[in-house]
């Protein structure tokens, strides 16, 4: 398999071509704005391709461990079953990792709901830290707001 250049580097090179050679040839401001938006999308994709599988596989055990601990603390059979069902598989195929990630996210959300209902203070604090971690990872991959071309008129 060809590994060089990486997918992210290829996408970055496409962005460079679009900005250096295609953008100057566009005279329609609407098309310029659309191209600028597309380059932001491509840059985000480059960023995601570098690490999205690794990020999800780092997060999955955190969610499952939290759900397991909530099940143990509360005696919830439903949360225990959800945690067991959300154990990470071995596959590194993106679609499989996404499916694992969704199951783990669901188990975590159910567990968080339960501790918020029962006001388990320590577990709530731990769950909120996990939410912050999830957001920090998301922020690293997606660049956040970009008000490209927003007209002020």
């Amino acid at each position, binding site marked *: 398999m060809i590994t060089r250049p990486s997918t992210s580097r290829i996408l970055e090179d496409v962005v460079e071509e679009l900005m250096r050679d295609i953008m100057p040839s566009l005279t329609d*401001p*609407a098309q*310029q*704005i*659309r191209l600028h*938006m*597309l380059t*932001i*999308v491509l840059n*985000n994709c480059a960023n995601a391709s570098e690490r999205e599988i690794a990020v999800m596989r780092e997060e999955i055990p955190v969610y499952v461990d939290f759900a397991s601990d909530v099940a143990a603390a509360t005696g919830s059979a439903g949360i225990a079953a959800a945690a067991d069902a959300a154990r990470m598989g071995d596959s590194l195929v993106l679609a499989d990792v996404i499916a694992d990630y*969704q199951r783990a*996210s*669901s188990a*975590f*959300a*159910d567990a*968080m*709901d339960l501790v*918020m209902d029962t*006001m388990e203070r320590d577990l*709530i604090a731990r769950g*909120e830290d996990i*939410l*912050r971690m*999830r*957001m920090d990872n*998301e*922020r690293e991959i*997606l*660049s*956040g*707001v*970009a*008000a*490209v*071309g*927003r*007209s*002020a*008129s």
Partner: protein
Amino acid sequence: MDVEHFQALLDAVEPERGAAVLSAAPVPGGYSRETVMAEVRWADGATERFVLRGDPPVESSVFRSDRAAEWAILQAVKDLPDFRIPTPRYFDATGEYMGCPCIVSEAIDSTSMQKFLDTGPDLDRARADFVAIMASAHNTPLESIDASIERPASWREHIDDVIANYERMMDAIGEVDPILRYTLKKIRMNIPPEVPLALVHGDLQPGNFLLSEGTDPYVIDWEFARIGDPRLDLGYYLQIPMPPHLYHPDPEAFVAIYRELTGLTTEQINPAIARYFLLLGTSHLMLDIMRGTEDVTQGRHRGVMGTFLMTAYAHFHRLYLDYSLELPYAEEATR
């Protein structure tokens, strides 16, 4: 929405006036509707400029709003005394002439308040002016608004419907988003005090205020307007990313002016409640964004916005977590 289409519309609605459409140029930058600036010469030699607002093709757009509902709102507010809107002139409801449902309004020689803010004015004064325009819309007596505009049966029914946007978001993507689940739970633990229902603009920001010499400001872009909780507009403005911001440098000063102009109490609006309403005042946009991203997931193209608005998705997602983490738990909220 080009010269030929607009000519056909004017020939149909103003057959006696001998219109000649001289130009029709797209105005780039809108994230929702397509906008065109057009110039017309009438048979008597007078010229006039118009703004055409039309629906982009469904398959290449993300935000959903109803031009007929917007037209009804424009008709309901066009003659109100407390603020101005560019006069709505023509409406092609079916797209028979313009190729898409389209509202035609007079064009105003103006500069937007956002551009004015870029010139470095006194921001205390600008804040007061901004809040005054916002309050003028919210103070509009509901009995002066045409009865055809839908009114919620009660404040609680209305606010529950807005909160339900979070359930709609999660239904739209068909998977569990722990951040949205957490945000929704904190929202429900912190239902704010009731306020009188009011005219809500839905996209209230300096970019939608037009400043013109010798007149009161004009308020434009009413596509998300409705009757509801006026604090939705305050919360919405908090997330506007374009600087300089008129709220964040001094939230207490902002809400104090608003209270003075609207008569709401400190319990009804304060910086904490304004931040709560960011979670609600943006939820209609987040819902459309998430429906768009789900379409992309399912292989349905939604134009550049379908993927580009992932940046807005991330922006709102971050704000939702940050702001909901600040909200107290139910037992704290009731102390």
